[in-house]
C-alpha cells in the first residue's frame, strides 16, 4: 500500500479497504481528521464578505498594484514605489511638515545621543508584513515596506517576494538600500521586524546590514506617553486616536497571512492590493508619529492643542532620562492645568525636582497645595513631615502630620503603615 494511502487511511479520509457496504463514518475518525485538519490549517478563516472572491480571471499583480519586477543578480522580486508630495495632507499635517522632526528630540526619546547629529533624510522607515505572528524561523516576511524623506516629499518603496524563491533578491536589495542610510525607524521593530529579518538573513546566508544600525523604535515612547488614554498601543489605534487619521477599507492585520497564502495559490493580484496599501499607510503613519513625538519633546506644540495627560507622561519620561532642563518647564506649565489629576501629578513630580534642587520654599508650597486639596495625601504629608523633621527641626509639627495620617488616612498600605509608624516613634524619641 502506498504511503499516501496509509496516511489518508490513518487520518480517516479514504474509505477503508475490503468494505462491501458503506461503513458508517465513525465519529472518532471524523474527529481525528478534523483534528489533523485544524492542526494543519489552523489559520484564521477570513470572512467571505471581506475576501476578494476567487475570480475566474486572476488580476495580474501589476494591474492591482502599481509597480514592476526588479531583476538583480540574485533573482527577481516585485517593487512598488510611490511618492507623496510635500503639499499632500496626512491626518492633521502636510507631508512637508512631517519632514522636519527634531533629531535632538529623537535622541532624547531613544536615549541614543548620536541621533543629534543625524539627518532625517538618512533614516529608513521599515515595516514588514508576514505569514504569521508566532515568530520563529518559519515566519516569512513576504512584504518589506520602506520609506524615506526626499526633498520634503515622502517616498515609499515596498519589496514583495512573489514566492519564497524571491526572498534572497528582496533581502539583498533591502541590504543595499539600508547601506545608504544611517538609521532605522520602526514601530515595534526591535522586538519583531528586525529580529525576523535577522533570521531570514541567516537562513539565506546573507550578511545582515540592519543589525547594529541605530534604531528609533516608536513603540516604546508611544507606550510611555499615550498608553494612559488608549485601549491598546497598536499603530492603528495611535493613528486614529492621536494622529487623527481614518483608514477606509483597511485590511485587518490578522487577515494578511491568509491573503498571501491565497495569492501563492491563485496568483490573483487582488489578494495583495489591500495589503500593499495597509503596509504603505503604516509606514507613513510612522513618519507622522515620529514628528508628533519629537514635537512634544521640543515643546513646540501649543499647550492648548495638547493633551495634558500626554504632556505629563512626556515630562515624567524626560525626567527619568535625566533631562531636567526639558522636563522642568513642562511640569511648571502643567501645575496650572485645569485637569486636577494632571495638575496633582505635575505637582508631585515637580516637588521632587525642587527638593533635589533644595528649592525648599517652592517644594513646600507644592506639598501644601497637595495636602490642602487632599487632606490625606500620603505623599505630600509625609514629605512635609520629613521637611519639618530634617530641615526646620519643627518636630512637633512633623509629629502631628504623621499622627494625622496614621489616624485618618484611608487605604494605608502595610508598608506605608510600618514606615509611618517608624517615623512616628523616632520623632517621639527625639522629642523626649
Amino acid at each position, binding site marked *: 500500500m502506498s*504511503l*499516501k494511502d496509509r*496516511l489518508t487511511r*490513518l487520518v480517516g479520509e479514504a474509505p477503508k479497504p475490503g468494505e462491501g457496504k458503506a461503513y458508517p463514518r465513525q465519529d472518532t475518525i471524523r474527529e481525528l481528521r478534523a483534528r489533523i485538519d485544524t492542526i*494543519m*490549517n*489552523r*489559520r484564521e478563516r477570513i470572512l467571505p464578505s471581506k475576501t476578494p472572491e476567487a475570480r475566474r480571471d486572476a488580476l495580474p499583480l501589476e494591474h492591482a498594484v502599481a509597480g514592476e519586477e526588479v531583476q538583480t543578480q540574485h533573482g527577481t522580486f516585485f517593487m512598488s514605489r510611490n511618492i507623496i508630495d510635500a503639499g499632500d495632507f496626512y491626518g492633521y499635517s502636510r507631508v512637508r511638515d512631517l519632514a522636519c522632526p527634531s533629531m535632538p528630540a529623537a535622541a532624547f526619546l531613544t536615549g541614543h545621543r548620536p541621533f543629534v547629529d543625524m539627518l532625517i533624510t538618512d533614516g529608513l522607515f521599515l515595516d514588514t508584513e508576514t505569514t504569521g505572528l508566532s515568530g520563529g*524561523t518559519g515566519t516569512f516576511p513576504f512584504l518589506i515596506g520602506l520609506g524615506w524623506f526626499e526633498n520634503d516629499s515622502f517616498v515609499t518603496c515596498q519589496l514583495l517576494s512573489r514566492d519564497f524563491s524571491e526572498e534572497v533578491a528582496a533581502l539583498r536589495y533591502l541590504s543595499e538600500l539600508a547601506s545608504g542610510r544611517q538609521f532605522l525607524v520602526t514601530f515595534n521593530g526591535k522586538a519583531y521586524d528586525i529580529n525576523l529579518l535577522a*533570521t531570514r538573513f541567516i537562513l539565506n546566508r546573507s550578511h545582515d546590514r540592519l543589525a547594529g544600525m541605530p534604531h528609533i523604535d516608536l513603540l516604546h515612547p508611544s507606550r510611555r506617553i499615550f498608553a494612559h488614554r488608549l485601549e491598546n498601543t497598536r499603530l492603528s489605534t495611535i493613528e486614529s486616536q492621536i494622529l487623527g487619521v481614518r483608514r477606509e477599507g483597511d485590511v485587518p492585520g490578522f487577515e494578511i497571512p491568509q491573503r498571501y497564502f491565497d495569492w501563492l495559490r491563485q496568483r490573483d493580484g487582488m489578494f495583495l492590493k489591500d495589503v500593499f496599501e495597509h503596509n504603505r499607510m503604516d509606514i507613513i503613519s510612522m513618519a507622522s508619529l515620529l514628528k508628533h513625538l519629537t514635537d512634544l519633546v521640543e515643546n513646540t506644540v501649543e499647550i492648548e492643542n495638547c493633551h495634558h495627560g500626554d504632556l505629563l507622561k512626556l515630562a515624567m519620561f524626560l525626567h527619568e532620562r535625566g533631562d531636567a532642563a526639558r522636563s522642568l518647564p513642562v511640569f511648571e506649565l502643567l501645575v496650572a492645568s485645569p485637569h486636577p489629576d494632571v495638575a496633582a501629578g505635575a505637582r508631585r513630580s515637580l516637588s521632587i525636582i525642587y527638593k533635589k534642587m533644595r528649592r525648599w520654599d517652592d517644594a513646600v508650597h507644592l506639598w501644601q497645595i497637595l495636602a490642602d486639596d487632599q487632606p490625606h495625601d500620603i505623599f505630600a504629608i509625609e514629605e512635609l513631615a520629613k521637611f519639618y523633621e530634617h530641615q526646620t527641626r519643627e518636630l512637633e509639627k512633623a509629629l502631628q502630620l504623621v499622627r494625622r495620617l496614621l489616624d485618618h488616612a484611608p487605604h494605608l498600605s502595610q508598608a506605608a503603615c510600618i514606615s509611618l509608624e517608624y517615623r512616628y516613634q523616632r520623632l517621639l524619641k527625639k522629642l523626649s
Partner: protein
Amino acid sequence: MAHLSLSEWLARAESDRRFRENVTAIKRIDATDGLFAPYPQWVNPAIQKVLSGRGITKLYNHQVRAIELVHQGRDIVLVTPTASGKTLCYNIPVLQRIIEEPETRAIYLFPTKALANDQMAEVHGLIRELKANIKTYTYDGDTPDDARQAIRKQGNVVVTNPDMLHAGILPHHTKWQKLFSNLKYVVVDELHTYRGVFGSHVTNVFRRLKRICRFYGQDPVFICCSATVANPREHAENLLEKDVLLIDESGAPRSAKTFILYNPPVVNRELGIRQSALTPARNMMNDLIGNRIQTIAFTTSRLNVEVLTKYLKDMFRGRIPDDHYVTGYRGGYLPNLRRQIEKGLREKSIMGVVSTNALELGIDIGDLEVCIMVGYPGTIASTWQQAGRAGRRTGESLAVLIAKSNPMDQFIVENPDYFFTRSPEYCRVNPDNLLVLLHHIKSAAFELPFEEGEKFGKEDLMELLAYLEEKGVLHRVDQRWHWAAENYPADEVSLRTISTENVVVVDTTETGDHKVIAEVDWESAFTTLHDGAIYMMESQQYHVDHLDLERKKAYVKKVDVDHYTDAMNYTNVKVIDDFDKKIKNDIIIEHGEVQVTRKVVGYKKIKFYTSENVGYGDVDLPQRDMHTTSYWFTLPWDLLNSLQLTRLDIIDGLAGLTYCLHHISAMLLMADIRDVDWCIGDKSGEWYVRPGNNRRVITTSPTKPVAVMENAYDPTIFIFDAYPGGIGFSENLFDRHDELINAVRSVIASCPCEHGCPMCVGPLLEVGPSARSSALQILDMMIGP
C-alpha cells in the same frame, strides 16, 4: 533501647518464621572492588587538581575509556550503575574542550527539570572551583524572558530537556546561532527513558537537531548515559541514527546488597485475595526507621505515596519531635519543598521517605540503607535503579520488592530466576509512526525548508512533503518546500503523547466559584469522566454531572458515596493487513495493521471494600476508531472442541488467558499497562467478547447484547498498541510469542488461588469459576507436549 544495625535487623528478620514464609527469594550480591586508571595525559591539570581536591585522584577504568573515546570524537553510550561517576564522563571532556576553545558549546539533555537542576548544581560546583569563565545555564519553561537572550549568546553549556529543544530552541535556531555554530557535544542522560511514544518523538527531535547542526556546519559528538537495559547500544543507535560505541563494564566498586522478593500472605484463598502490599511496607518501614536505619519506599502511584506517608506519620507521631522525620515526595510538591527533602535526606535529618519514581532518576539524596518497593515498578531496569537508591557507597544495603496482586507482580516474585538472571527489557522506538513523523516533518519544514532529495526518517520524504503540500501547509517552489501556514507547528504536539487533546475537570460544587481541579488525557476521559462516573482525586470523590466533549470539559461536584464506578468498554478489532505469520501447534500467530473500535457502553457501581456490584448506568458516548498495529493469534474451533469444555467455559478461559496475557505483555515490553490493550474476537470484526452485567457475553454490536457464536469464526486474541499508528510493540510480541505464552502459563499455574483471582486470570466474580482451569487447558494445548 539499643538500635539494631542493618545486618542485625536482617539476621533477625531472616530468623523470623512469619517473615520468611512470605519471602520468595533472597539474593546476596557481593561487594566488588573498584578498577582504577590514571587520568589521561591530555586532561587539563586544573581539572585534575579540582577533582583531586574532591578526593578523585584517579578515575574508574570505564570513565577513562569514556573520556578517551569522546576525546577522539566518537559517539558513546555509557551503561553503568548508580554512583559510578557517569557525570564525569561527560563533564571532563566538555569542560576540557571549553577551556581549550572558549567558544565551544554543549547541550545537556535531561528528561525532567528536576534532574536538570540537579546537574546544574554539579557542573556549577566544578566550574566554580576551576575558576574558569565558563557559563552554564538551564533553559526551560521556568527561565525568565530577560535571561534568555544572555543564555542564547553566552551559555557554553545549555542544560535543557527534549520538550524545550523541540518547542523552544529548534524553531528559533537563528537566535541560537552562536550555540549551533559552535556545538561540539550533546549529552543525553537517562537515555532509557526515551522509549515508546516519548522515544519515538525524541528520535525525531534528534533528526531535527542534526539537520539544524548541518545547516550551521556542525556534527556534534553525542554522549549518552543509560540505566541497564537489554539493548543500550541498539537503542542509542535507533535514537541517534548513527553508530554508537557501548561502554558497559563498570570499574566502580560496589557495596554488598541483599535483595528480597516478598509476596504478602494470602488472606482469602477462595477469592484469591492477598494482604495489601502497603501493610508489610508500613510495618517494615516502621521497624527500620525505629532502628534509625534510613529507608526509602517507592510506590507505583501518587495516591499510595500519600497513604503510606500518612500511616507512617501516624505511627511516629509523639515518638519523635520532628514532623519531617518521615515524609512523602512526588511530582506536584513544590520545588522548594523538594529541595528541602533532598537536603534532609542527605543530612540524615529525614530517616524515611515515600516516593513515586520521581526520585528514581539521578537526583542526589545521598546514601540510604534500605529501599522498599511497594509493587513491581514495571520494568527490571527500573527495579534495579530504584534498588540502587540504597547503598550507593555504604557498606551494606537492602532492597525489598513487595508484590501487589496482579499477574505482573506475581510473575516477578514467583519467578526469581527470571528477575535475577535475565537481562532487563528492551527499549523500543517507532519514530516512523506516520502521525509522529508527520508532526516532526512539519516542525522541521518550519525550521528550514526541505530540499529535493533530502532524507528525514525512513519513509519516502518526498511523498510526505507532497501530501503536506496538497494539504496546503507546505508550498513548493524551485525544488524546495517552504512552511506556508500561520501557525507554529511545534506547539501542536506534546512529545509525551501522540494526541494533544486534554479534558479539564471543573469542580462546580460552589456555585459561582468553578475551579479546574485536574486535566485528563482524551482517551482516559471516556472511561473516567463519562456522565455518572465517580472521579477520584486526592481521596475526594466527585460525581461527573456532564462530560462536554466538544468543549473538552467535565463538570463535577463533590460527593461522599460508598462506591466507585468502573466503565464497561467494548472493543472490536478488525484486521486490515497482516505483515507476518507463523503456525505453531495449529495456532496461527500473526501481526499487522488493525482497525480498533472502542465504545464505553455503561458502567458498574462498585462498593468500596466489598467490591459488590451495586448498580449500573448507561453511557452514551461516541465510539472511537483508530488504526494501529497488533499482534494476535487464532485458535481454531477444531482444536478447542477437543478440550471437552463447554462453549461458555472456553470463552471464560480465553478471557482469563487474555487478562493475564495483557499484563505479561506490558511487562515484557517494558511498557505501561495502558500502552497496550486487548480484545477477543475474530479477525473479521464480526463478533467479539465483552463483559456483560453478570458474565461475559458474545456479541456482534454494542447494542445487541447477545448473539450466537458461529463455528465458522475461530476465536482470535489481539494485543494491540494503544496509540494511533502503533508504536512498534506488536512485532516484538510476535517474535516473543513462545516466551509470552510460557510466562502466562507459569503465572496462572503457580497462583495459589482456587478458581481464579486478580493475580492470574482476573477477579473471580468477573471471569467465572471455570476461567482458571479452562485457561490452563487452553495454554497446555497451545504449548504442546
